[in-house]
């Protein structure tokens, strides 16, 4: 194809039809790339539509706050000039605007939605809007302030108006503040009273327990992976099946099995009691606490540590260790100075897998975690399915995602992501 002989001296290499070789190569490469892109395009599109887009939409909910402005447009404008620090209620113009807005909102059945939204910020507003909605239908214009306060004394409370004013912008940082146990008051951002702080505890606990679980997975997984990689094929295949079998079993079944084993009248405690190791009233508490979560999750995530370790160990030539020994190293030195450094990549890959999986784990801590062994994800699930506070759930999720990305970045800086090997 290309005319290689034309390249003597300082002349530019060209193809037979005269285009410079460099350009021709670039075109060919671009064509290759386009072909590759076309091949992965369905997958890319699929991921964009079913993974990236929903996540982006969920993340956006953590700051979105259109509802106040959309439901009470006139009131929000009228309330702009009100100074909440004076201790006086807003003037009649605001109540007149509220009358107009509420009439429209009740007709569109939007008022109770706003009530539920603002109830997250200030308890009681849900019923304020629900009750007011019923009365507003038959309310006549004029004297709005008196009538509203008569319908519900909530309209005569500063706090209600402060909440409406504070959450009237289209975007809010309120969910993020709540997610770090803080709130905005007239004195600025303050942290919530200690009796209401929960998210720091949960984030800290999730992080701590994920580290512990990763540690146990390394301790337990390393020897097994070593055996797998070094036993004769027949035995190691059998062992491999034993590793994979729980991997293929339903998560719920495995977690429930742990319940049967670990509870106070369960298999382990019963055996210990029968053997006389523990007294009947001194049975070990192995479940419904952190211990339970750590045991069950270490077991469930162990294959994610063993498999990358195994595939890395498989590639380490036995001649290295033999060479070390022939040069005078004892068993430990040969392992520690020669074999172990070669497996770091596997440990890294396994640790990242296990840590990231466990930091977002939900079902096992929910079932065996009791009150001390639950993770931040359990709280996110609560806000998604029970309290319907999706904004707060989204902000907690965003923070969790951010933490994972920071760890990933730190790992890349310290160990180097190129050193991670899955095989």
């Amino acid at each position, binding site marked *: 194809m290309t005319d290689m002989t034309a390249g003597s001296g300082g002349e530019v290499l060209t193809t037979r039809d005269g285009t410079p070789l460099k350009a021709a190569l670039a075109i060919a490469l671009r064509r290759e790339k386009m072909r590759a892109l076309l091949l992965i395009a369905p997958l890319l599109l699929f991921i964009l539509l079913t993974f990236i887009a929903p996540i982006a939409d969920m993340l956006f909910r953590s700051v979105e706050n259109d509802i106040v402005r959309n439901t009470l447009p006139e009131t929000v404008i009228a309330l702009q000039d009100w100074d909440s620090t004076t201790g006086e209620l807003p003037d009649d113009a605001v109540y007149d605007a509220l009358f107009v807005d509420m009439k429209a909102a009740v007709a569109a059945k939007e008022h*109770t*939605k706003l009530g539920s939204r603002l*109830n997250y910020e200030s*308890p009681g*507003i849900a019923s304020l809007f629900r009750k007011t909605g019923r009365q507003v239908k038959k309310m006549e214009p004029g004297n709005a302030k008196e009538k509203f306060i008569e319908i519900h004394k909530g309209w005569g409370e500063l706090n209600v108006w402060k909440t409406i004013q504070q959450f009237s912008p289209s975007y809010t940082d309120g969910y993020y503040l709540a997610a770090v146990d803080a709130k905005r008051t007239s004195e600025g951002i303050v942290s919530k009273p200690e009796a209401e702080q*929960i998210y720091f*505890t949960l984030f800290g606990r999730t992080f701590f327990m994920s580290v512990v679980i990763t540690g146990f997975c390394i301790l337990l997984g390393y020897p097994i992976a070593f055996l797998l990689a070094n036993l004769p094929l027949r035995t190691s295949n059998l062992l491999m099946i034993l590793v994979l079998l729980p991997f293929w079993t339903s998560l719920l079944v495995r977690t429930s099995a742990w319940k049967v084993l670990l509870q*106070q009248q369960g298999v382990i405690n019963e055996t210990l009691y029968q053997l006389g190791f523990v007294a009947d009233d001194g049975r070990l508490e192995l479940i419904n606490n952190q211990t339970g979560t750590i045991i069950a999750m270490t077991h469930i995530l162990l294959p994610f540590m063993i498999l990358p370790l195994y595939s890395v160990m498989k590639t380490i030539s036995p001649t290295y260790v033999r060479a070390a020994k022939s040069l005078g190293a004892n068993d430990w030195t040969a392992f520690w100075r020669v074999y172990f450094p070669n497996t770091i990549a596997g440990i890294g890959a396994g640790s990242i897998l296990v840590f990231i999986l466990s930091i977002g784990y939900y079902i096992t801590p929910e079932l065996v975690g009791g009150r001390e062994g639950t993770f931040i994800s359990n709280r996110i699930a609560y806000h998604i399915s029970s309290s*319907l506070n999706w904004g707060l759930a989204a902000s907690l999720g965003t923070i969790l995602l951010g933490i994972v990305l920071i760890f990933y970045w730190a790992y890349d800086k310290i160990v180097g992501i190129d050193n991670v090997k899955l095989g």
Partner: protein
Amino acid sequence: MKLKTLTLALTATVFASSAAIAEDMTIVSWGGAYSASQNNAYHKPYMANNAGVNIINDESAAEAVAKLRAMNEAGNVTWDVVDVVAADAIRLCDEGLAMEIDHDAMLASAPDGTSASDDFGDLIVSDCFIPQIVYSTTFGYRTDKVGGTPPADVCAVFDTAAYPGKRSLEKRPINNMEWALLCDGVAKDKVYDVLGTPAGVDQALAKLDSIKDDVIWWSAGADTPQLLADGEVVMGSTYNGRLFALIEEQKQPVAMLWDAQVFDLDGWIIPTGLSEERTKRALDYVKFATDTQRLADQAKYISYGPARASSAPLVGKHEALGIDMAPHMPTDPNNAKNTFLYNYEFWADNRDDIDAKFQAWLAK
């Protein structure tokens, strides 16, 4: 050979088209014995009367509120009738996710002509809610683990000296806070006034704190019966129907502690955003399934009280066990000597706030 293929294809087409004629109606409920009771008392007779309707059971009532909201946002509501607890009905009504019901116009009157709204009475706690059953959250205890003096009142739960061992409570503030205050000396009619103040919340949490290490917290209704059967707990709260099954059907050494049982309601809602035709069908079903006889029929299969006053006299025997169901109803006078009324409005307003404090206390 060719003829055979043709016949097969033809049969398949006929089947496909006859399946298309039968309209699917998705009814969402809680699964287990409860769904089975609805299937026997409502679905089967309804389908027998309406050959064109095919009822599909979905068991995701526990996530109904979140799922309905997601479906509504996506503009594709696939559920026709949903069974929810009253608190969720209020929430769904507030969010505009459930249809408002004109009870007198849309539901059947009692046999004696009493209008539906009078027959249901106070149980219509939301404009969108069609009451179905009265259930209660109450305690069961192991008869073999309480010594010679079985507990008689709810404060036994807080008395770890007299009744040592673990107890199971639901992992949420609702009901637990009320029981804690009752056992801390607050009068029954003052409970919600006290709980409405920050000091009252602290008081309830302090009472719960005294048994914090003796509690296993449950989140699914099946947990407590399992814990009681395993002997993991000496007493625990759950729904009365679950305890009935544990005691009468599985014959476990467990007894009911009806004291201070908290009445709650369960019923139907119809989602908004359905086509006119589907709404009409859902309403037709609901009208049938909540008439006096049908509500009484359900009590043959599960020990929950029918929501209509007119159904109570019609409650008969358990279909399989043949025992009288009336004494097992939470509303039976012997069981309802001391009951506690769940305050829907209070919890709708304060649930998020108190739950945050409760969970923070729990996590410490």
